[in-house]
């Protein structure tokens, strides 16, 4: 059908119906495409010719209305529910009566395991590139948390395992337990919100994220982007203990510590009380020992000082005595006795020492002093 405008002078004007029809026939030339999105607002009524739902982009919430003829939909035998991620093969169309753009679905396929894994791998690479898993982001856990936040599902096992292990190691531990949905479509948002709520509680120094073992699909909420971001962005350090040893949901990479099981998580968040007391006692013993060593060292250095001090006067006398002996030696060297010992003699007359024969006269008495003893004599002859 050709779309004819009305003419108002030079202006071409289209009716709504003509415009919608024109756009619709142009859009109808676009090819069929596969589109990935999350199913929301799924509507199916017995009287309706078609089923309707909205495909949502989980990244930014962009929406696309989808319709599918009811017969074709029922033929797929799909149990389509809100939140399911699907691939839809469809052709864009304009619903002319309402001027609404939508996708006319020809086929719908729920995402298979391979596609889910590929999606997870993409998400993992993206978050890793943002640095959410970087080792330098990991924070140390407190030695003794004032309070431990525990996020768990309403299944008893994981919670019981964790609580039993915590109380076995450290009976005085304080726990704040938050139960929430850990499975199903509501889980990612519920987990993210509950994590934030726990972190806001006073004195919560560490949060443990637990969930017992389950199928790959059961654990998917713990790989949801919202949960991973909430874990990475938490103001309180987080220990992830989801599933069993072999499971590594993406939240494990974002958590500060990954524990293989809830029981293992308990070992990370509380110390063993007996061990802790032993370590404290060891520190105290070392403290006393080292203090005593320091005092002992100070005491012996004091004793050494005192001994040196008390030796000092004797040392002084000794030194003086040595000085004195030197002096005596030098005095001895100057004494005439040594000269006499070598065979010289001193001649005295009238108490004066005779140095020249001119001082003598024949018949005068002289006293001669030898090295040993002395004698008197009379001068018999003088020679100049």
């Amino acid at each position, binding site marked *: 059908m050709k779309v004819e405008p009305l003419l108002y002078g030079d202006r071409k004007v289209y009716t709504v119906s003509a415009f919608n029809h024109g756009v619709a026939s142009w859009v109808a030339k676009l090819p069929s495409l596969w589109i990935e999105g999350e199913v929301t607002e799924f509507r199916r009524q017995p009287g309706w010719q078609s089923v309707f739902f909205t495909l949502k982009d989980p990244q930014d919430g962009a929406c696309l209305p989808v319709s599918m003829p009811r017969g074709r939909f029922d033929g797929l035998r799909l149990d389509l529910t809100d939140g399911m991620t699907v691939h839809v093969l469809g052709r864009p169309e304009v619903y002319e009566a309402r001027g609404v753009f939508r996708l006319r679905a020809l086929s719908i396929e729920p995402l298979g395991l391979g596609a889910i894994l590929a999606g997870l791998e993409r998400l993992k690479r993206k978050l890793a590139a943002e640095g959410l898993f970087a080792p330098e982001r990991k924070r140390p856990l407190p*030695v003794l948390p004032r309070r431990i*936040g525990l996020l768990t599902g309403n299944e008893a096992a994981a919670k019981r395992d964790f609580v039993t292990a915590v109380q076995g190691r450290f009976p005085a531990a304080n726990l704040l*337990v938050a139960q929430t949905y850990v499975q199903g479509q509501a889980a990612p948002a519920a987990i993210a919100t509950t994590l934030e709520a726990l972190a806001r509680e006073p004195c919560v120094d560490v949060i443990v994220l637990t969930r017992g073992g389950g199928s790959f699909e059961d654990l998917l909420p713990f790989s949801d982007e919202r949960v991973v971001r909430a874990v990475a962005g938490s103001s309180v350090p987080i220990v992830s203990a989801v599933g069993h040893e072999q499971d590594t949901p993406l939240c494990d990479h974002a958590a500060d510590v990954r524990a293989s099981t809830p029981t293992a998580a308990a070992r990370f968040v509380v110390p063993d009380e007996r061990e802790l*007391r032993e370590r404290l006692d060891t*520190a105290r013993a070392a*403290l006393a020992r*080292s203090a005593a060593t320091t*005092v002992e060292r*100070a005491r012996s250095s004091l004793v050494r000082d005192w001994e040196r001090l008390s030796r000092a006067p004797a040392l002084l006398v000794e030194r003086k005595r040595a000085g004195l002996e030197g002096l005596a030696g030098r005095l001895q060297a100057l004494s005439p006795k040594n000269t006499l010992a070598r065979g010289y003699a001193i001649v005295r007359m009238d108490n004066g020492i005779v140095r020249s024969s001119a001082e003598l006269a024949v018949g005068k008495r002289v006293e001669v002093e030898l090295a040993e003893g002395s004698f008197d004599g009379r001068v018999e002859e003088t020679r100049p």
Partner: protein
Amino acid sequence: MTDALSFEDARRELEQIVAKLESGQASLEEAVALWERGELLYRTCVGRLDAAHGKIEELGKRVDEARP
């Protein structure tokens, strides 16, 4: 004097004091002061352990189950 300290900080300080004393670099006055401080920290830590009573609360419900 140690009331405001967390258990963790008290224990860390105690270990630092022990390390300092063991290095033998402290003077006598310092050593005595460090030993007194260390003893106080030790008693603080042990006191905290002795005084603590475990509690399990539910977020949302807040049913306190104080345990001996």
